[in-house]
């Protein structure tokens, strides 16, 4: 394959700016698929993705295009996930490209993700083609958005393509610009093999399918390869290119994008960002830069509502993990909730997706505990341990310091909402760094922010303080010590592990009071009084009481009353089964979610 006729590119954009629609048009115009095959937003093939309007799992596709010079080119579109939780995956996809289309919705303008994705692309030295989308819309403000883009990355209005992906306007120009403005790959076909795994998926029949960009050398069927990071070796069973389906080829050579099947059994062995090298020539190569193992950032307990569903839940989690190397879980036991699992996610969206898939695809009702981050706890004896579950926190007198993950966060916000946004970040223990004005009316605020502060209701709050106009993005930055305490909730004097939280001392009082108050509303009255207390160590900071029944008996029980009463009792019985018993009182499942809704 002639490398000079290959172009590898991605499309980067803020959510809903039209990335998927543009991809559809490119596929259509290059006759990669017929209009009959056309399903809206072909690249997103999970229901959940379509509903949420975001691409969760990246895919790649090869197109053919005859450019203005009359030559035929191969264009590989490498799709990228569109959410902040998947930044690392985006960066690996970008590493497989030489250029990127930066799509900006002209009715919305530049957003936080536009900026962060652009910076990510620039870090990889990609050629950037700005594509201004939705120019057919009445609310489109092409001039203003052109100025925003120039402010952001320089250039002139002439560099920008004006497009309506929906109406199919300007698509041919996009294809031509890809050929003309993105450089061909620069690898050496004769050098030892180096291929970047930028994505993978699990197939029930074939095992793991790796999506690769061959950087140097050639990948052939039958070749013995080693995955550099894991050190595991495999024989290549099949290589090929990606149209809408996989298309087997004899080899993939430098500059090409395709797939690799090599009898890899588990997804965790085909790590995104890893380098595939020829087993015999390991010594002659250095791996491609930028690999890092995926580490879950957010954790929560998942428990079956019905304890008999424990095995099905484990089975479902195993199946989800097959297809999602970033998701982790291990068994845990809660005094309040019984047997369940502690699960790790890349972020909140990732968590929601997993939970929704469990309920929707696997039909298992689950109780989720309050999500938390991973803490580093330094003990007085100098040992450091990772704590992913507040219940596992050592006692306060053993702890020298607790460190929490800090994010470098940026929020792009119209000037009139800056005050509200700053106040929100302030409440969330944000440390202000600086402000960049993209133009007179839009500012990019930079903050350092504890991850723990965004795992509850941050997004909703940001939306409300900015009327939905602020866009937010972050990347993990460091671990930092903070004055964190463990807040326990006691039910009738017994600590309830599933409701414990690690929280900043300054917020513990409000949090505890608010949580007790909510629990009081959620816990139904019953035959025994329920005393709800919040405590830090042995100090009680809040208390609420759910009064016991004074009288609970129907007066009449004759003839037909008996059937009615029996049905009522059996309904109550079912209700009780859905509650968790703590000592002599019962707590409904919703109570365990109460903490999710707390604003502090």
């Amino acid at each position, binding site marked *: 394959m002639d490398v000079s006729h290959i172009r590898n590119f991605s499309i980067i954009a803020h959510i809903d700016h039209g990335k998927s629609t543009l991809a559809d048009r490119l596929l259509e115009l290059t006759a990669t698929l017929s209009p009959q095959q056309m399903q809206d937003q072909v690249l997103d093939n999970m229901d959940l993705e379509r509903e949420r309007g975001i691409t969760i799992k990246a895919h790649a596709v090869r197109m053919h295009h005859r450019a203005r010079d009359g030559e035929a080119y191969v264009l590989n579109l490498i799709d990228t996930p569109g959410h902040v939780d998947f930044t690392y995956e985006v960066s690996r996809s970008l590493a497989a490209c030489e250029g990127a289309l930066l799509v900006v919705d002209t009715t919305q303008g530049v957003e936080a993700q536009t900026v962060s994705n652009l910076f990510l692309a620039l870090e990889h030295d990609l050629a950037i083609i700005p594509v201004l989308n939705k120019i057919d819309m009445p609310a489109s403000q092409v001039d203003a958005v052109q100025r925003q883009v120039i402010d952001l990355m320089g250039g002139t209005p002439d560099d920008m393509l004006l497009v309506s992906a929906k109406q199919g306007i300007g698509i041919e120009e996009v294809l031509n610009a890809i050929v003309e403005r993105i450089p061909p790959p620069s690898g050496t076909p004769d050098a030892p093999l180096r291929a970047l795994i930028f994505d993978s998926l699990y197939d029930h029949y074939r095992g793991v399918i790796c999506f690769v960009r061959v950087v140097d050398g050639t990948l052939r069927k039958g070749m013995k390869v080693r995955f550099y990071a894991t050190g595991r070796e495999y024989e290549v069973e099949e290589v090929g290119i990606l149209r809408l389906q996989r298309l087997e080829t004899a080899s993939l050579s430098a500059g090409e994008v395709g797939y690799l099947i090599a009898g890899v059994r588990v997804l965790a062995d085909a790590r995104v960002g890893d380098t595939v090298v020829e087993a015999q020539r390991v010594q002659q190569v250095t791996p491609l830069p930028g690999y890092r193992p995926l580490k879950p950032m957010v954790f929560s307990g998942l428990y079956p509502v019905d304890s008999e569903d424990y095995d099905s839940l484990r089975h479902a989690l195993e199946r989800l993990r097959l297809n999602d190397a970033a998701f982790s879980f291990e068994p845990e036991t809660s005094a309040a909730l019984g047997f369940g699992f502690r699960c790790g996610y890349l972020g909140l969206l990732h968590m929601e997706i997993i939970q929704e898939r469990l309920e929707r695809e696997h039909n298992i009702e689950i109780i989720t505990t309050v999500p938390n981050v991973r803490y580093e706890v330094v003990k007085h004896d100098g040992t450091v341990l990772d704590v992913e579950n507040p219940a596992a926190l050592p006692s306060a007198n053993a702890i020298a310091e607790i460190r929490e993950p800090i994010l470098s966060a940026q929020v792009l916000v119209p000037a009139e909402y800056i005050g509200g946004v700053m106040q929100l970040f302030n409440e969330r223990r944000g440390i202000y760094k600086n402000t960049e004005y993209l133009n007179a009316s839009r500012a990019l605020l930079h903050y350092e922010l504890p991850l723990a502060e965004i795992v509850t209701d941050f997004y909703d709050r940001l939306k409300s303080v900015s009327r939905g106009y602020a866009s937010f993005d972050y990347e993990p930055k460091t671990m930092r010590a903070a004055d964190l305490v463990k807040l326990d909730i006691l039910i009738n004097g017994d600590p309830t592990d599933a409701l414990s939280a690690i929280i900043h001392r300054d917020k513990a009082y409000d949090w505890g009071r608010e949580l007790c108050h909510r629990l009081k509303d959620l816990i139904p009255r019953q035959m025994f009084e329920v005393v709800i207390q919040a405590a830090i160590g042995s100090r009680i900071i809040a208390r609420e009481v759910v009064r016991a*029944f004074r009288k609970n008996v129907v007066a009449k029980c004759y003839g037909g009353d008996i059937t009615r009463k029996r049905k009522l009792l059996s309904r109550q019985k079912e209700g009780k089964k859905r509650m968790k018993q703590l000592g002599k009182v019962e707590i409904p499942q919703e109570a365990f979610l109460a903490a999710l809704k707390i604003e502090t």
Partner: protein
Amino acid sequence: MSCLSQTFGLYVHIPFCPQRCPYCAFTILTGHTAFYDRYVDAVCAEIRLWRSLAHKGPLQTVFFGGGTPSLLDPVHVQQILATATATFGIAPEAEITLEANPTTADAQKFNAFRASGCNRLSLGVQSFNDADLKTLGRWHSAAEAEAAYSTARRAGFTNVNLDVIFSIPGAPRRHWQSTVHKLLALAPEHISTYALTIEEGTRFARRHHQGRLTPVSEDDDAWAYAWVMEILTAASYEHYEVSNFARPGARSRHNWGYWHGADYLGVGLSAHSLLDGERHWNLRTLHAYLTAVEAGCPPCAGAERLDPGAARQERLWLQLRTCDGVLLRPTELHLLTSSRKFHAMFEAGWLHLAGPQLRLTTAGFLLADAIAGEIIVTLEEARSTTKRSKR
């Protein structure tokens, strides 16, 4: 009480009422006087449809409930009792109860009811306070209620029940106290005290939703019940079921049958029956009921047979509502006494256990439903855990 399961009772539902009370959610019909004859004929026809049950006879109890059975002409009652006698036989010592409202019968009528064979009268007094009676939408006064009681006595009713209601919205505690004192002065053989509940679909419920009626607080409701239990038992009434008090020997044998699984046949609109472990219930509209019976078909709207587990559970909570409580089976006793929750209820002073006989204390009666629910769940969960661990 094994003999009770061999008793056989007849319940006759008389759905007619002069007007609908604002708290009432029963199947009743106002007006419809033109239908009385036809309805009574249908009830008799329905009784004859069950002649296959003759071997269960003779009847130990008959209960005319409603509705307002005293609206009927005594001839109607006679006709029904004659049909029952012809079909099943009525034991000479049988308890035959008629429900009556104070102003629906005069001396002559009471005499005639008594003469027809009724030997127990249940009078719907509800309150001896005129303001309460007005709240309840009753059409009689306290004086009329008292007069009706005397009339019944003169007519030869030596076994009389008075029905009273507590927790009437807006009524101060002293109304209930004076009503109960009046009861004690009249000294009926039997007293039923019902807490007013606001049932969906009633005028009270509508007024409650509109904010025009404030139900009595739970504290006041609990007080009224606890107080009446104390006063009536002190006055030598036996508190033999959640809502029922009787002089020794004057328990309602018919109702006792309901709570102990006795066979009973219910005839008339919407009546329920329990026969050999199967429960069935009748159609609820007059037209459908009459059409079915007149065509010679049983007017049955539905039936259920409980599996042994459910039947046992039902027996547990029903008997727990009575003074005798329930005789626990050895496994039940074992499962309960190893439950933490059961111990908590026991320590709270709500339960009394004498050997395998479990019953509620006075404090326990206040929470009878919650306690019964708890016991059922405890038994069920303990059983399923045992099953699982065996697996």
